[in-house]
């Protein structure tokens, strides 16, 4: 399959042409940074090391060896609740599509990283705050299902404000749906690494983000179940500075590693490598050695 247009463009020109001449201000230290410089520095502030939220295309471009074989891109959100508040939901979607150049809050597909073929999902906060609606749930589910069929490891970058209100309970149920897919993937021997980026909260945090074999987080990312504001309103006191940061969670034992972005890819390659070629006995949960849905090749024979 040919390399997607956006990947070719990002490779040629890390910052989209229409934004290239702009300067941007670091929200942490206030430094003005020339955007191509920022892109070249993996979207990390050269002054204070603040990690900017990354566009899914930039993230993928930074990670994959060559091509990226997108799946689920044809799945587009409907308006199941007929939602309107200030503007109708379809208008919000159209606006976000325009602004973000994304069709939904996650980009899924197959690629290789450091020579390791894998299934990769990257969420993007630019599209409806990375909230999980039916399309995000469906794309993630399809990715795990196909990774399971192909016997590939799965890496998911999360960035999400939680379940998408505008799709109501259909959004919440994506927590259940993705969980089912992750569980089957795992029970058939699948290896899953999640990378929690800023911010990862609510329904995404409380489902596939914390169901991985290895849970990583980007430095200083905000991670939690309840939003910071909700907690402050509930307990009526100020929260400590580092509350719900990746570093806080590491100390509290919730995550495996916190990584600065400049070592993320190399670390990921090493972690993927540990999962290769292990002598994995069949889990057997599904009875007489037959996986419940369809067969996958044993780990040893994987690419």
């Amino acid at each position, binding site marked *: 399959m040919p390399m997607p247009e956006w990947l070719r463009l990002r490779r040629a020109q890390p910052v989209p042409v229409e934004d290239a001449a702009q300067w941007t201000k670091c929200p942490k230290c206030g430094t003005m940074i020339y955007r191509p410089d920022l892109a070249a520095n993996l979207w990390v502030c050269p002054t204070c090391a603040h990690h900017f939220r990354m566009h899914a295309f930039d993230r993928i471009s930074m990670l994959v060896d060559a091509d990226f074989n997108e799946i689920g891109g044809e*799945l587009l959100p409907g308006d*199941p*609740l007929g*939602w*309107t*508040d200030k503007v109708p939901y379809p208008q919000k979607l159209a606006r976000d599509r325009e602004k973000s150049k994304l069709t939904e809050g996650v980009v899924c597909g197959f690629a290789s990283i450091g020579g390791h073929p894998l299934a990769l999902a990257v969420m993007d906060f630019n599209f409806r705050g990375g909230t999980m*609606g*039916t*399309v995000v749930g*469906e794309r993630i589910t399809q990715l795990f299902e196909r990774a399971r069929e192909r016997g590939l490891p799965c890496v998911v970058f999360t960035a999400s*404000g*939680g*379940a998408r*209100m505008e*799709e*109501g*309970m*259909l*959004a*919440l*149920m*994506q*927590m*259940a*749906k993705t*969980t*089912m*897919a*992750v*569980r*089957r993937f795992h*029970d058939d021997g699948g290896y899953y690494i999640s990378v929690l980026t800023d911010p990862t909260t*609510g*329904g995404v*945090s*409380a*489902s*596939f*983000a*914390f*169901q991985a074999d290895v849970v990583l987080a980007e430095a200083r990312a905000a*991670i*939690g*179940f*309840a*939003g910071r504001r*909700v*907690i402050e309103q*509930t307990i009526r006191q100020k*929260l400590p500075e580092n*509350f*719900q940061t990746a570093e806080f969670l590491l100390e*509290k*034992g*919730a995550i495996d590693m916190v990584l600065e972005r400049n070592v993320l890819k190399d670390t990921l390659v090493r972690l993927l490598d540990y999962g290769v070629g292990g002598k994995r006995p069949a889990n057997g*949960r*599904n*009875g007489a050695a037959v996986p*419940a*849905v369809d067969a996958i090749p044993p780990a040893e024979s994987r690419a």
Partner: protein
Amino acid sequence: MNVIVEREKGLIQLEQRIDELKEQAAQQPVDMTAEIRALEAKYAEIQREIFGRMTPWQRVNMARHPKRPIGSDYIAALDQFDELHGDRHFRDDHAIVGGFAKLNGRRIIAIAQDKGRDTKEKVYRNFGMASPEGYRKVLRLVQLADHLGLPVVTFVDTSGADPGIGSEERAQSEAIAQSLYELADARVPLVASIVGEGGSGGALALALADHVLILQHSVYSVASPEGAAAILWGDAARAEEAATRLKLTSDDLLTFGIVDEVIPEPIGGAHRDAAGTIARVLDAVDRALDALIPIPSVELRDRRYAKFRRIGAASP
């Protein structure tokens, strides 16, 4: 302020009037039949007016009615219950009550969220908002059920998971995620009943099930109306508006295929006939188990997978 409680006040006064008149009629020779009939007709009319076509927000208030049967009432109505405590690691979370039980003689694991009735109990139960230890208790009980081959029956009633500092410190997200993960492939039948509020992930963590029942006036929502209003408009006071938009009523949920069965409530709500309502719920649970238990374990889980797989899928 609960809008249902407010609207009930007139009805309760009318009820008292009717009772008084009936007593008078019994003691005095005067015929008051006509008056009583008139009042009863009026009563029925007001009842129809209040309860005949309830708005989503009224449903939310009904689901939160202070007299509505709570988790522990369902547990108490089982034939037998032996509570099992704790997550084995940190604490026994009183917001969730679970253990061995019998339902119509059938051995089960029963788990309920319990909001508590009076103030002291509400505090003890943390208003039904579970901490990570509560969800880890669920996980443990589901593993026990899986090991012994016992069906799991849950009763859901929570405004949401506890949003306190301690819960975040002890990884609330992980706890909910792992409860879901355990239910996802449990080798035994799972039946969940939404008996009050089904608030967000904190409710779903007990409601990933083969058969999901809901009481007619219960609600089940992606976020509490207050929470959704705060998220959407930064204004929790717009909860009524959010309730309307969220499609959280039992009818909506049945249409969307998110619940499998709606249990009717008596006019005026479950608390007007608590024992009857509870019996109807338990009866529906029992029937669901009758249907699920004969299904072989692998097929049961394949069906469960397919059931949730369909929700919000591209081509349903």
